[in-house]
């Protein structure tokens, strides 16, 4: 029961860390979804330049480690005269990274909507953007949710990397206690349980969204 006492004693410190983790995760989810949508639309547009820029962006963001991106934004940008505080730098990096993955899920879903929908919308006189907004995207969202959920759950755990830019989030606050108590296993397990809890809450939300978006005819 010694381990249990330790965990209970440690919970306030870890709760503080978990609150920070949640702050980073939720902010970068919201911004990431917005940025992801913009990138997905650029990627499928007929404008070669926009599509090329989006493609290059996705390639760069998915092809380099998040840790390196974090380093460059926080420690490298000051040399270009851009000095961000740890919170801004962390949320910014997580956002630009997640946006690349999210945009690919969205692109796949948009492409999954039949050409007939586009043709029908155009024949009704809707412009390209109107078709996206009112016809294609609402249907694509239903297809995209499971895959978006995947990325967002990964994002919760990716937040642990902000510890390299001086943020004492959940995992780092756990390590601080481990360093002082020499009890890695119970404390890491507790941290894991908290991450799992956060992911479970997100999964529940995802199920609710899916239910809302489901077609009445689908059971």
């Amino acid at each position, binding site marked *: 029961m010694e381990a249990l006492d330790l965990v209970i004693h440690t919970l306030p410190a870890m709760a503080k860390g978990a609150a920070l983790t949640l702050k980073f995760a939720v902010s970068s989810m919201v911004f990431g979804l917005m940025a992801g949508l913009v990138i997905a639309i650029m990627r499928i547009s007929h404008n070669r330049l926009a599509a090329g820029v989006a493609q290059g962006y996705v390639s760069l963001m998915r092809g380099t480690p998040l840790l390196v991106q974090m380093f*460059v934004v926080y420690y490298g940008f000051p*040399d270009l005269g851009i000095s961000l505080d740890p919170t801004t730098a962390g949320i910014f990096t997580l956002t630009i990274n997640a946006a690349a993955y999210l945009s690919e899920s969205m692109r796949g879903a948009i492409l999954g909507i039949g050409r007939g929908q586009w043709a029908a919308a155009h024949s009704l006189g809707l412009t390209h953007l109107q078709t996206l907004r009112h016809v294609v995207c609402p249907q694509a969202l239903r297809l995209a949710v499971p895959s978006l959920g995947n990325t967002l759950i990964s994002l919760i755990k990716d937040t642990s990397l902000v510890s*390299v830019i*001086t943020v004492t989030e959940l995992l780092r606050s756990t390590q*601080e206690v481990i*360093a002082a108590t020499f009890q890695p296993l119970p404390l890491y397990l507790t941290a894991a349980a908290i991450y799992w809890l956060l992911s479970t809450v997100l999964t529940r939300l995802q199920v609710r969204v899916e239910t809302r978006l489901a077609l009445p005819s689908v059971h």
Partner: protein
Amino acid sequence: MKRFNPKFKQGLAAALLCVAATSSHAADLLDTVKQAGVLRIALEGTYPPFDYRNGEGQLDGFDVDVAKAVAARLGVKPQFVTTEWSGIIAGLQAGKFDVIVNQVAITPARRQALDFSQPYVYSSAQLLQRENDSRAFKSLDDLKGKKVGVTMGSNYVDLVKTVPAIDLQVYPGTPENLRDLAAGRIDAAVNDRLMLGYLIRNSHLPLRPGSVVPGGDDQMGIPFRKGNPKFAKAIDDAIESMKQDGTLKKISMQWFGADTSKPVTQ
């Protein structure tokens, strides 16, 4: 002792890619610090008894006390920033903080990138063994063919590598390293002489100190960005005066029961 790890190198390489070398601060760090009235001090916060969070969640430890004393001599307030070792030197170079007080060993390689204060701690590497293990390893040569554990990024990795016949095991942290030693999966661990008493007392593991490793001497200093001659003079004077009036010895006796402010004479 202390520490360069692969994550750090990876990140540093990336940071350097977008750095156009020389930075723009023309003013000496001393002027900047005095003007702000604050010395920004980086440490890990996970490195007891040097710097760690105590039961109340406050930063505590030998390096914390030293840093506070240094800031006081400079006539400014200390402001602590905790960060992972892997980002700590990049953060110093990017100007996120002014100094690191975290048992940074003075090495020729680091001197090329950073300036150091005069040493404020003299220490050396020492072995740890299981309490019931009566083998007496006198030096690294005695450990040929044996398994020796060290913490990732510590300069003991390089020290142990000088004897290639040793089976080196690298651990993410000291607690994991010591647990494996107690469990009998490795023959010995190498750590900072100053940490041994603390580690054995607080880990509640059946361990005992082994021999001091010959050739494993270390001098710890306070690093800061290059090109700040006024700051260099000020911090050296601060440490010198702390040595002269016994402040440094007092802090050292309090944490280690020994005077670490002078080279070991054995």
